[in-house]
């Protein structure tokens, strides 16, 4: 009776372990995936900024005594010239990369935006709207106003939602942009919200030419923001681009490494924590089986004397382990699926690194495979050790000792 109870508890542990594993992984990777979507939709997959001073590239060739030598120069300590040079030529070069799906030239700078009663320092992003919507989700991020309004009026501005809140701006309001080469009167054409509070608090979009004139950088200082077909391959594409065009090129993975590492650490730590439930269940099963082997030693010896093989003795424990595992996995997956769905419906308002009003979950089969694999490993070990002990029982020795 006690053994059955212990076995049921272990089964319950496997079910909970698998379900918790799936749920925690779905949550952490769900938030991570949403964060990645947000930052890809805001800052693009790759940014090309400053030009390297060593325009000859990283490989130089010399000839000594008739022998050709190649020298590889590290770019770690390379000096940069601010901004890209010759954007048109760069675009032409970048168009040769089939993985690139969009290129947007951006001029970044700072200024002070004044509304009716307040002013605030802002980060200016000069863009060509048609290009920029190819490399960002700006279209979807507009919460008030129209992109078309902005497109038609070169003296218009798109401001972040938090700036608008602070300066109490509405669509159509006139604002003054100070700094750069002087003052600029602009009309608010739209408000956007990325969900990233730092951006929503400080960023405003201007027409590229307007920004160039205002910042006094008509021919230099721009950067390029790119979108790619497969964002997961951005680091490799970024490295290729850097080597080809001699400009500092940064992928989103490199740019957001801190946050990605945080998510990774969360995912791993939750996996380790939840795996301990499965480990404890495995220990429970091991305990039950180990006691069973001790209790059934004589019966096993008698069965061996009747012609049962060592494997027959171990098969009893392996089968029981397999049954517990199969039931545990089946129930665990069902509970995991239902729990993940239930959690995705829980309201949760998050603003900061992204914007969401509910728990984000990621429906990824790899979470289920990982949970199943961990359960299989623990239960297999828990069953295999007692099974091996059962198989090693020497019938003559046990019967002799029993009599």
């Amino acid at each position: 009776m006690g053994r059955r109870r212990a076995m049921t508890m272990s089964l319950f542990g496997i079910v909970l372990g698998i379900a918790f594993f799936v749920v925690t992984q779905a949550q952490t990777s769900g938030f991570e995936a949403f964060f990645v979507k947000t930052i890809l939709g805001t800052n693009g997959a790759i940014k090309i900024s400053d030009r390297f001073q060593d325009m000859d590239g990283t490989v130089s060739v010399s000839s000594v005594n008739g022998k050709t030598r190649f020298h590889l120069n590290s770019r770690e300590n390379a000096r940069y010239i601010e901004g890209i040079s010759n954007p048109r030529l760069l675009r032409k070069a970048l168009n040769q990369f089939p993985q690139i799906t969009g290129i947007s030239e951006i001029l970044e700078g700072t200024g002070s935006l004044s509304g009716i009663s307040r002013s605030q320092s802002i980060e200016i992003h000069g863009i060509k709207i048609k290009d920029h919507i190819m490399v960002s989700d700006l279209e979807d991020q507009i919460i008030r106003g129209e992109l078309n309004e902005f497109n038609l009026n070169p003296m218009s501005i798109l401001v972040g939602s938090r700036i608008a809140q602070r300066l109490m701006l509405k669509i159509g309001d006139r604002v003054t942009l100070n700094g750069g080469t002087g003052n600029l009167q602009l009309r608010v054409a739209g408000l956007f919200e990325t969900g990233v509070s730092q951006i929503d608090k400080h960023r405003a979009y201007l027409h590229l030419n307007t920004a160039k004139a205002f910042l006094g950088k008509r021919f230099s200082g721009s950067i390029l923001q790119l979108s790619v077909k497969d964002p997961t391959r951005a680091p490799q594409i970024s490295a290729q681009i850097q080597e080809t065009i001699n400009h500092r090129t940064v992928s989103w993975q490199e740019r957001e490494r801190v946050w990605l590492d945080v998510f990774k650490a969360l995912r791993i730590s939750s996996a380790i924590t939840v795996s301990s439930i499965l480990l404890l269940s495995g220990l429970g099963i091991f305990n039950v089986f180990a006691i069973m082997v001790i209790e059934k030693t004589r019966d096993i010896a008698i069965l061996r004397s009747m012609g049962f093989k060592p494997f027959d003795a171990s098969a009893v424990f392996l089968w029981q382990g397999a049954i517990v595992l199969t039931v545990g996995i089946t129930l665990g997956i069902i509970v995991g699926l239902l729990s993940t769905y239930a959690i995705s419906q829980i309201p949760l308002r998050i603003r900061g690194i992204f914007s969401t009003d509910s728990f984000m979950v990621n429906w990824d089969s790899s979470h289920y495979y990982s949970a199943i694999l961990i359960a299989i490993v623990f239960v297999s070990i828990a069953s295999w050790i007692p099974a091996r002990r059962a198989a090693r029982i020497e019938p003559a020795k046990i019967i002799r000792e029993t009599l």
Partner: protein
Amino acid sequence: MSIQYRKKALLEAKNLHHSFVEGETITKVLKGVSLEIRAGETTAISGPSGCGKSTLLYLLGLLDRPDTGEIFLHGKEVSQTDDSTRTNLRNHSIGFVFQFHFLIKELSVIENVALPIRKAGISKEIAKSRALTALTRLGMESKANRFANKLSGGEQQRVAIARAIANSPSLILADEPTGNLDSANSENVFTLLDNLARQENLGVLLVTHNPELAQRCSKKINIRDGLII
């Protein structure tokens, strides 16, 4: 290894030596035992405690291996065969009866008897039918569906004998099968084994401390200090 075929004897042991090792102590239990068991005969092995009777029985029953010597079962040398062959021989050719019945208490009488038949790859239904036949031969058919631990000592030992003969072996090895029974049940069990040997043409090897029973066997072997005297 060459396989030698011999006639007459069902089981033949030649010059068996066996010892136990515990730490640095080596105890020689059998020091050159030779014997023959024939079909249709009961052979008694007797001797003082610790003289090697049970050890000899386990060697002949292929539960253990001798240090040296040969064992021929149906004329075939089997003492050093691989585990799989020994296991199959135990299942098909040898039936064990021990001093204690060693029935599995979680199983019914018929399930206990059917165990070696099922192991031989026989279907559940046929195995149960054969088990019932074995129980009928021992007068235990009415108790077939009872749990083993609900029977008396004598009944349990009869079920153990039914289990030993369930797979129609040619050899029964009984290690003090009456050692735990009163005189009436001892008589019953011995008579059963003796009848089986005569009627079924089985070889029965019986380890016993009871000199009366030993005397009634077809052949009597005395062991002392690991040697037949």
